[in-house]
């Protein structure tokens, strides 16, 4: 009877993951989808606690200890998830992902000795779980620190070669691990240590602008690591959950790379934002500032305004002020829309999450292609804290590191107002000739302050 209850729970759990992911792909059903997957997960966990039987047929030991661990993890997880600011979501997801990777790696470390007698093929699933989970853990922690601005990019000459060498050594040792006939803690913990080191070195050189891709990739890594654990235990719900995330995560990663018109290899080994010579060539001229009062007049007498939000908006938490400005302009008969670049912010869809928080109506958010089609008919574009996603160098400067990336073609509009903290470079570390265009006016200052000033001026007109 126990087996049957466990089996049915796992079946329901697997179905809930599939249905949940499917519903997460549609705006109306996304929230329910998340809750359904959570319910399925709870069921699978409870069923494991009470109905799982070891191969010898006895129930699990240490139930109080397990419950204590779950209580502790739940308290910490809920606290962290409720406390985090909306702007810091990407790094939080990265951190939780790392926890899962560490969990998979720990399982591998603990089960290795136990499964030693079963030979190389079984051991290879343990070895793979250890390596993939470990890379996911240390890589995610580095991604978290980088997104949290605790850690900058770190590059040195020959880094790619060192990383490649380290990977070869790591994989060889991982294979060696599977062919052991006796327990060698030195080899096991050596592989674990090297794995963590590799995860660190793997993510360190990758530029901040590429972090979304890295998080998505590490997310699918953890899925695969979980699936290896599922294979080891012949546990169907771990298998389906892990593989689903592994494959969906890989597709999501590829979609993100496509949005930047780059290959995954290029993201992983190309040093984006290295400030190559030639990237800045041809950018010259003078910039023109505009005062909030003049900008307000320009906006209020326009027919059509397009707002391009970027990371600066997120940092300044200016989404609510931005929405206020949009409403004030609409009251004056101006049509206002938002142009959303797929990789604006630090995560795909980051801008949508923020603007949704500020109650901006969903139909006002235009995806890149639609926004670009409307650019020539737009009177004023307001760029709020975005830089690389509106850099024309992506279209016309083959020497630029972002050449080929699809951008929002704001230079097609009649006027451009760029709100920016300073003349600093964007995350990719390159100059933006848009700022020097005769159509462009710069409005310097914190995004929230500038929007607030603009809002006051518009209301006073």
């Amino acid at each position, binding site marked *: 009877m126990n087996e049957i209850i466990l089996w049915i729970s796992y079946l329901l759990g697997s179905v809930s993951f599939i249905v949940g992911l499917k519903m997460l792909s549609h705006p109306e059903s996304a929230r329910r989808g998340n809750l359904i*997957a959570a319910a399925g997960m709870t069921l699978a966990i409870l069923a494991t606690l009470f109905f799982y039987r070891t191969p010898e047929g006895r129930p699990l030991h240490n139930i109080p200890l397990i419950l204590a661990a779950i209580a502790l993890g739940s308290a910490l997880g809920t606290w962290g998830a409720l406390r985090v600011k909306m702007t810091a979501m990407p790094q939080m997801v990265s951190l939780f992902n790392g926890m899962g990777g560490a969990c998979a790696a720990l399982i591998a470390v603990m089960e290795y000795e136990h499964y030693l007698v079963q030979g190389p093929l079984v051991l290879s699933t343990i070895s793979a779980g250890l390596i993939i989970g470990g890379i996911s853990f240390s890589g995610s922690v580095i991604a978290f620190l980088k997104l949290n601005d605790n850690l900058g990019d770190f590059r040195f000459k020959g880094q790619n070669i060192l990383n490649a060498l380290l990977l070869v050594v790591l994989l060889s040792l991982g294979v060696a691990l599977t062919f052991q006939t006796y327990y060698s803690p030195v080899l096991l913990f050596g592989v674990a240590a090297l794995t963590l080191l590799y995860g660190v070195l793997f993510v360190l050189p990758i530029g901040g602008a590429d972090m979304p891709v890295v998080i998505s990739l590490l997310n699918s890594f953890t899925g695969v690591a979980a699936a290896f654990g599922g294979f080891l235990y012949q546990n169907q719900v771990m298998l389906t959950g892990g593989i689903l995330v592994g494959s969906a995560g890989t597709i999501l990663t590829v979609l993100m790379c496509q949005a930047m018109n780059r290959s995954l290899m290029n993201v992983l080994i190309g040093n984006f934002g290295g400030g190559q010579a030639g990237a800045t060539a041809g950018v010259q001229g003078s910039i023109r500032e505009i005062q909030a009062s003049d900008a307000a007049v320009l906006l209020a007498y326009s027919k059509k305004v397009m707002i391009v939000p970027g990371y600066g908006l997120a940092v300044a938490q200016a989404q609510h002020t931005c929405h206020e400005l949009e409403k004030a302009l609409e009251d004056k008969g101006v049509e206002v829309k938002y142009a959303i670049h797929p990789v604006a912010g630090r995560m795909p869809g980051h801008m949508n999450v923020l603007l949704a928080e500020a109650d901006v109506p969903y139909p006002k958010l235009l995806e890149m292609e639609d926004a670009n089609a409307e650019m020539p008919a737009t009177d004023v574009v307001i760029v709020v804290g975005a830089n690389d996603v509106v850099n024309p160098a992506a279209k016309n400067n083959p020497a630029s590191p972002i050449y080929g990336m699809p951008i929002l073609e704001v230079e097609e509009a009649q006027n451009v107002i760029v709100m920016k903290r300073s003349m600093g470079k964007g995350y990719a570390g390159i100059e933006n000739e848009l700022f020097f265009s005769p159509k462009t006016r710069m409005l310097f200052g914190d995004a929230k302050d500038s929007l607030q000033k603009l809002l006051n001026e518009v209301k006073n007109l």
Partner: protein
Amino acid sequence: MEFIQPTLDFLYQHREAVFIIILSIFLGVEVIAHVPSVLHTPLMSGANAIHGVVIIGAIIVLGEAGPDNVPAQILGFLAVVLGTLNVVGGFVVTNRMLEMFKKKKK
């Protein structure tokens, strides 16, 4: 060539698992194929919570640790805590993100 036979035996021995893996790969691709970019972040976050299913492995490890095996109990405890963080944190964060997509009544 002598490794081919054992490998095939191994795969056949785990034929159901192999079946699940292959079909799940296709399923994963299909399920998210048409996701609008607005939902990329919540989807990634939701998927992140789902791979927290690895916690079941951690529960099994800790549950199989002998009463006297303190190191295994400590490591297992840590693994369950980490797995729970992944699951609970992941679902709560996703829910918070999606709360903001709630349709407002007009």
